[in-house]
């Protein structure tokens, strides 16, 4: 496994002051689906750009002065060093402000932060990626990494659920992914005229997955918490063990470095101990309401 996919040490400049952002400029904005766009961000400072590395599953803090700061998972190919893509849904004031910005505008970026998908664990094994809605965005770097070194892995399945056919993210890339050896299964909760694909919740895809060897599979899951809970349940029912399951959690990440307290879940800070957790570590705290 290439070392570039291991979570790198933070940029020493950032490490000296975790609150200090670097300037990034919007290089491109690609509308994905209604209310969701991908922003390619490029560091203004060459030195920062040169040293910036992230691992699939990590996130950045994007800072829009005056509006605020939000945690956004990175959705780029980790080998891409020119720009860094973030797929963002308009959900609040910061993302709405971002949606009003254009190519060339600048903002602040701190990162990368957090843990990453355990790609090294996947070598020689099958990988199932279960994801829903915008949850595909943090999985995309993992897809890029898996496909880049396709031969190192067994069967690769992506099970992706969206609300409706027109909200399937990155649809233009599925053919490419398939050609390169990722089996893409999609399903929607709300069908539409002309949709010949699956209808029903994404956990059903896992239920139906054939050629599934529960003891030799690693499962990555990213999506709403309820979806992840039932995905895990299905995976366990199908014979997987908790140590093979990895999920990406979300909480109110603010400082991103474990200093502000907002994103705690049980003994973990989602920002620094996560967002990617092995399921058995987080399991005792996942089902406790209001923890």
């Amino acid at each position, binding site marked *: 496994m290439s070392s570039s996919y291991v979570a790198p040490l933070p940029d020493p400049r950032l490490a000296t002051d975790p609150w200090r952002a670097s300037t990034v400029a919007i290089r491109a904005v690609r509308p994905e689906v*209604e*209310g969701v766009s991908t922003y390619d961000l490029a560091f203004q400072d060459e030195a920062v750009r040169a040293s910036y590395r992230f691992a699939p599953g990590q996130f950045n803090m994007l800072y829009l002065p*005056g*509006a*605020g*700061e*939000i*945690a956004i998972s990175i959705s780029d190919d980790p080998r891409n060093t020119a720009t860094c893509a973030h797929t963002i*849904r*308009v*959900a*609040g*004031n*910061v*993302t*709405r402000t971002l949606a009003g910005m254009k190519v060339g505008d600048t903002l602040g970026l701190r990162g990368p932060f957090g843990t990453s998908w355990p790609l090294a664990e996947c070598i020689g094994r099958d990988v199932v990626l279960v994801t*829903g*809605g*915008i949850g595909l965005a943090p999985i995309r770097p993992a897809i890029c990494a898996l496909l880049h070194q396709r031969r190192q892995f067994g069967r690769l399945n992506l099970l992706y*659920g*969206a*609300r409706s056919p027109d*909200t399937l993210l990155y649809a233009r890339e599925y053919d490419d992914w398939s050609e390169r050896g990722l089996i893409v299964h999609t*399903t929607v*909760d709300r*069908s539409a*005229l002309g*949709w*010949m*694909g*699956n*209808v*029903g*919740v994404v*956990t*059903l895809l896992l*239920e*139906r997955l*054939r050629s599934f060897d529960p003891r030799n599979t690693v499962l990555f899951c990213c*999506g*709403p918490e*309820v*979806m992840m809970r*039932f995905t895990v349940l299905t995976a366990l029912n199908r014979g997987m063990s908790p140590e093979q399951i990895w999920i990406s959690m979300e909480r*109110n*990440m*603010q400082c991103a470095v474990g200093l502000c307290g907002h994103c705690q879940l049980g003994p973990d800070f989602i920002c620094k101990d996560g967002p990617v957790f092995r399921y058995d570590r987080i399991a005792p705290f996942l089902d406790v309401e209001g923890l």
Partner: protein
Amino acid sequence: MDPSQLRFILEELRFSAMLPAEVLDQLAAASTIKQIPAGTVIFREGGTNDNLYLIRDGRLALEMSVPGRGAVRILTLGAGEMVGWSALLDEGKMTASAIAVEDSEVVVAEAEKLRQLCRANRDFGYHLMEQMAAALSKRLVATRLQLLDLFAASPTPVPDRTSESEA
């Protein structure tokens, strides 16, 4: 089709894989296998239907018609899954329409035969109904998740609580 071949098929299907041998035999004896071309309507919502179907291959869709919206596809079902439970539990009054989305192969069991078997053999009845209940409970949970509309965007943007902004 040869019942032993059918039994072999049933053993492979998720719905029936866990059934004891004699139950499988009986089920195989009550079943036939059928090819269904894409687009075939297997039964219609509100209509009657005499069979329980187990999908061996291909994909079926369940649709319900809503005035003004036409036929709304609720769920697609694939290999190993059961369709047509109303035939067995609801006297054949169907709650949705089933259509083959692609060329499919299904195991067809006559509901009346199954009912007779259930009455005659409580053991058979227990095992069949256990699988029915398990399949339906999974479908119920899946429907609940669908109902939660987990992937919906917030209807209106809400203020981020990530930071308090102030003039």
